[in-house]
């Protein structure tokens, strides 16, 4: 009985709140989707884009309200004023070309008014170039895997234990007692603020969707394909999202948590992680299955990376400097060589300046067979001059740098391989 009245009071407050909510639809929820108490509206989010999206949403909402008021106003007036008791004699008009043209044109104009800003925002959202860092996101049944490209840091992110306990059928645990019920994870994704971060999103088994409302990012994680998205977080904080594509039994239980921190903090965290991984006491050494349903996938993937050094190895002994260098050293050296020789055309971002200066990011050459890559550096091509003057080590280093930057991940090149291909 008292429970009853409790419920009732509950609804009363909610209904009033509901009205209030409608009234204050515009009131920004800058703190974003922090899941604290009822919300009526889309979060404004914490990036420039997410604000644009929010404005787009509100614009469309108000346009529809306006049209609604008009249309329904007319309808209800007619329902009231033209009922038989008040208006016994029906008029007998049934056509008016002018008015029909008018109410075809006006909606059309309104639509253009909506389409233009929408198109603008969309084009910005889909341009993930010039990003400062890249995170590879892989959806699993039913957890997420994150990999910081080129940092050697990667880990799984799974539903927090307390939520997981409470969500079992008949667990007897009241979800209200669990902090961030179903939107908390064991190992959140940590990101720096104020930087353009690119996400490479894919799925391991079935389609998932990586959704963080506060970033206005929702992209499907599709097995065998990679989708790109990006965000530039403005406000530090914890942002929560969920998997937004039905992916089987526990689709509702693979949340996303992002901790956005100042750059310095992020760097600190990153070094810690690296240390942890080096010490091996982190998930990092869990092998990450390559996306794409088939085992054949893994086969080709590894095959390709192994294949790279292969052609050179026989010639290796011939090369004077037979000793191989570590990936880290090569990349470090390569970065300098690149800045000195290549950056002017191919840009720091590796995006180049197409059409004349092609991008190295993801390019066939810089990610294809090693031999082709080295030969192009040695001999040049079209307007690109040859760089034979550089030492084997420099060329190996810069090639390695190019094959492992901007999301490229195509193995390393040793000076011996360059030596083999000179002449």
């Amino acid at each position: 009985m008292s429970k009853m009245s409790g419920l009732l009071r509950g609804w009363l407050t909610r209904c009033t709140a509901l009205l209030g909510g409608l009234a204050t639809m515009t009131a920004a929820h800058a703190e974003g989707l922090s899941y604290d108490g009822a919300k009526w509206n889309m979060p404004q989010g914490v990036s420039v884009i997410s604000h644009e999206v929010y404005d787009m949403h509100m614009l469309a909402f108000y346009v529809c309200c306006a049209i609604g008021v008009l249309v329904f106003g007319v309808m209800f007036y007619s329902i009231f004023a033209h009922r038989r008791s008040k208006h016994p004699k029906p008029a007998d008009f049934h056509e008016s070309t002018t008015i029909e043209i008018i109410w075809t044109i006006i909606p059309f104009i309104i639509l253009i008014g909506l389409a233009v800003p929408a198109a603008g925002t969309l084009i910005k959202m889909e341009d993930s170039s010039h990003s400062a860092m890249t995170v590879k996101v892989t959806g699993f049944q039913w957890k997420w895997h994150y990999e910081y490209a080129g940092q050697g840091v990667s880990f799984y992110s799974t539903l927090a234990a307390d939520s997981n306990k409470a969500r079992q059928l008949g667990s007897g645990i009241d979800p209200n007692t669990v902090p961030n019920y179903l939107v908390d994870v064991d190992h959140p994704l940590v990101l720096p603020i104020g930087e353009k971060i690119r996400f490479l999103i894919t799925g391991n088994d079935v389609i998932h969707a990586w959704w963080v409302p506060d970033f206005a990012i929702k992209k499907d994680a599709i097995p065998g394909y990679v989708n790109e998205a990006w965000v530039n977080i403005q406000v530090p904080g914890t942002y929560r999202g969920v998997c937004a594509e039905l992916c089987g039994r526990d689709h509702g239980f693979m949340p996303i948590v992002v901790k956005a921190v100042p750059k310095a903090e992020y760097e600190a965290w990153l070094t810690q992680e690296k240390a942890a991984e080096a010490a091996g006491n982190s998930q990092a050494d869990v092998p990450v299955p390559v996306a794409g349903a088939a085992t054949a996938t893994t086969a080709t993937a590894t095959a390709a990376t192994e294949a790279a050094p292969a052609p050179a190895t026989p010639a290796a002994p011939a090369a004077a400097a037979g000793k191989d260098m570590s990936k880290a050293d090569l990349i470090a050296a390569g970065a300098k060589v690149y800045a000195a020789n290549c950056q002017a055309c191919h840009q720091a971002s590796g995006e180049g300046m197409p059409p004349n200066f092609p991008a190295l990011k993801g390019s066939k050459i810089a990610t294809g067979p090693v031999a082709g890559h080295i030969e192009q550096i040695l001999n040049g091509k079209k307007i690109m001059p040859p760089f034979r003057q550089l030492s084997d080590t420099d060329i190996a280093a810069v090639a390695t740098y190019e094959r492992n930057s901007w999301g490229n991940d195509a193995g390393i090149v040793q000076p011996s391989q360059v030596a083999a291909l000179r002449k």
Partner: protein
Amino acid sequence: MATNAANQSSRYFVPAPSAWPFILTIALLTIVYSVGAWLEERQLPTNAMIICGVALLLYIVFRWIRDVVLESEGARYNAQVDRTFRWGMTWFIFSEVMFFGAFFGALFYTRELSVPWLGGLGSKVMTNVTLWPGFEAGWPSNGPGAVGGSFGTMPAFGIPLINTILLLSSGVTITMAHHALKAGKRPLTVLWMIATVAFGAGFLFCQAHEYIEAYTKLNLTLHSGVYGSTFFMLTGFHGLHVTLGTIMLIIITLRLMAGHFKPDSHFGFEGVAWYWHFVDVVWLCLFVVVYWL
């Protein structure tokens, strides 16, 4: 408009209540249910069930067709009913076109979009770089996983060309048959029909040969990635339609021998002819986009 002289009734023919559709559905259900059980290796006497289902299905189809033939020969159909059949057949064939459309669409999509994307072309560079490094787009393709192992393809100007000629000729012969029928030359009609059936059978023979070739010599199978999938699904469903078409051709040939159809009213014949031409056209598309290009 061809009108059956015997029936000028203004009344539209409404058939008597019939149990065939209901029983036909039972047969259909038996078949699909047991095929489903068989695919899932469930503990059911699937083979027996399938046989019973098919037997019942064939029996009902026969009885149903028989009723229609008797009604038609019994001059129950007036000009309006005749128009109904024409419209009905037209839209049925249209629905068949859309069915093939789905598979042609799949061929277009895989060939023009998904395979190139996997190869790093277009907007999906990172797909290739991060997941399938070293995979070069091209066609025919069984994908970056090289699913089904390396395979060969059917040269367009071998058997497929022969099949094209066979079907085109059958299109001609059935038209000749039609003219002969309209001219009331029944024996000639039958001869042309027999030729048509022969061409149809010939086509099926060649295709069977082609499939055996593909499986035994070329290692081209249903498993050969998207190429194998689209190749066999398209040609396979077409072959199925040719088979049905041939059976229908045989039926009307027998009906012609039995003296059915009149020079001025023979929709049964024309319907089958339309269907046959449709199968013919589908083949031409197949020949061009599947074998040739």
